[in-house]
């Protein structure tokens, strides 16, 4: 946030640097079961983001001392491919991706019926193939579809979106320039039916009014994105029915 630059992020006519209006999402496409081996998978394309999510489990938790006798544990690994960003990213986990893995695991734990699988673990792998701002939310949104596609019982879909502040204006779904040079970034994920927040982070500077305005935009957007998730999931089942599987 807040890196200084001379780039104009809001045009004369009030549109944004990529031509969108304040409350316009980038194009989103989700496809399920794109991988053969994983129990469930999804590919999300969100603006310039291309992110794969794959799920294994529930399976016995390993190492054994991590087992919880009351519930399954959800282990998410968020990773950015070395070639996913402008300057090559050194492979392997860094502090940012470890934190993202943690908050995404916690968000999915709230939605998955973990109490049905004591001593088990659900592995969720999120691989960012191409990054274009908002990768944690796009990855989590895809991961939720992948968990559902794996047939793991869930209370609810997890669906997220980002809002932020750019040149004093609250806008939805930040693009890369807005993410780099904007004044605030607020990624939020909710459960689609209950509307409860399972992931929220914020950095930058927001007043309470701006926060309220941003979260209202996010709530409206998650309804649209959730429909894309549902369509992606049912499209796969419709296809397998026709194929006589």
């Amino acid at each position, binding site marked *: *946030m*807040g*890196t200084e630059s001379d780039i104009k992020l809001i045009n004369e006519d009030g549109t944004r640097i990529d031509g969108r209006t304040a409350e316009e999402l980038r194009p989103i496409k989700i496809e399920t079961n794109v991988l053969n081996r994983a129990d469930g998978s999804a590919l999300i394309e969100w603006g310039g983001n291309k992110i794969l999510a794959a799920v294994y489990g529930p399976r016995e938790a390993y190492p054994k001392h991590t087992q919880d006798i009351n519930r399954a544990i959800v282990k998410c690994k968020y990773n950015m491919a070395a070639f996913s960003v402008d300057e090559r990213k050194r492979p392997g986990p860094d*502090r*940012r991706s*470890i*934190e993202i*893995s*943690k*908050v995404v695991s*916690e968000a999915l*734990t*709230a939605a998955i019926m973990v109490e049905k699988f004591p001593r088990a673990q659900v592995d969720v792998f999120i691989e960012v193939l191409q990054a274009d701002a908002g990768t944690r939310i796009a990855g989590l949104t895809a991961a939720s579809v992948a968990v559902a596609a794996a047939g793991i019982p869930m209370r609810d879909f997890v669906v997220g979106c980002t809002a932020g502040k750019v040149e004093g204006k609250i806008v939805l779904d930040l693009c890369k320039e807005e993410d780099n040079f904007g004044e605030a970034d*607020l990624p939020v994920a909710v*459960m689609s039916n*209950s*509307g*409860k*927040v*399972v*992931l*929220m*982070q*914020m*950095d*930058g*500077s*927001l*007043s*309470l009014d701006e*926060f*309220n305005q941003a*979260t209202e935009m996010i*709530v409206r957007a998650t309804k649209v994105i959730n429909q894309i998730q549902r369509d992606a999931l049912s499209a796969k089942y419709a296809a397998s029915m026709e194929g006589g599987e």
Partner: protein
Amino acid sequence: MRLPWKEGSKVPRDELGVLSEIKKGYILRQLKEGKRNDGRELNAIREATVQTGFVTRAPGSAMVQLGKTRVLAGVKIELGTPFADTPNQGVLTTNVELLPMAFPTFESGPPNENSIEYARVVDRGIRESKMIDLKKLVVTPGEKVWIVFIDIDVLDYDGNLIDACNLAAVSALKTAVIPGAAQGLEDIPLPVTCTPIAVTFVKIDEFLVPDPDLEEEQASDGRITVTTTEDGNLRAMQKGAGGAFTFDEIREAISMSFNLGKELREKYFR
């Protein structure tokens, strides 16, 4: 060396890090009667003591006791090269060490996901509030800048490490002096612009309570941290530890955080 420990402060022994159902029930019953686990009011935070200048070898330091949680922040300021994309700014890094002496299940070794999360939440509050004017840390643009290292040792763990670490880091930074004289420059106070305060809440059943002790953390389902500055702005937020919050609960946390932040600033940063 005599440490400024509070006499007779004992935390419940809790080797497994698991809270009994009986204790959970007690905590909830207390809350329903308007009292916290340790007897304080519902919306009260624990008494804190801040002792700055604890480590005189560090240009800034602060020992903080929050209830029975104790952390020590040390600030080191050294000359180095700036990042390529910010040639006209100093550098800030924050690290939290969960020392094995602080809790039976803490292990030595590289930072784990908890210590990384705590450090990054504290870092975001300090960085995004622009508490330290990084532009004033440039010696030679693009070549030589001051690097501010904030290292926080967790010594004794009884809940709410984020707020304790934030209070310690901010206190240490406010008293830090850039050691320029050793480099043929001048010793100057670290340029500080504001006071970011983190306030963490946990949800226990339907109760949202600030500054949880360890047992309350263990009984809780969901954590949220809100960092504010005195100009009335939110600077960092983090929802953590499973569970789910309604937006109304989050707004409640935000308004409580503004109030408690004000209280803490008046008490410790007059």
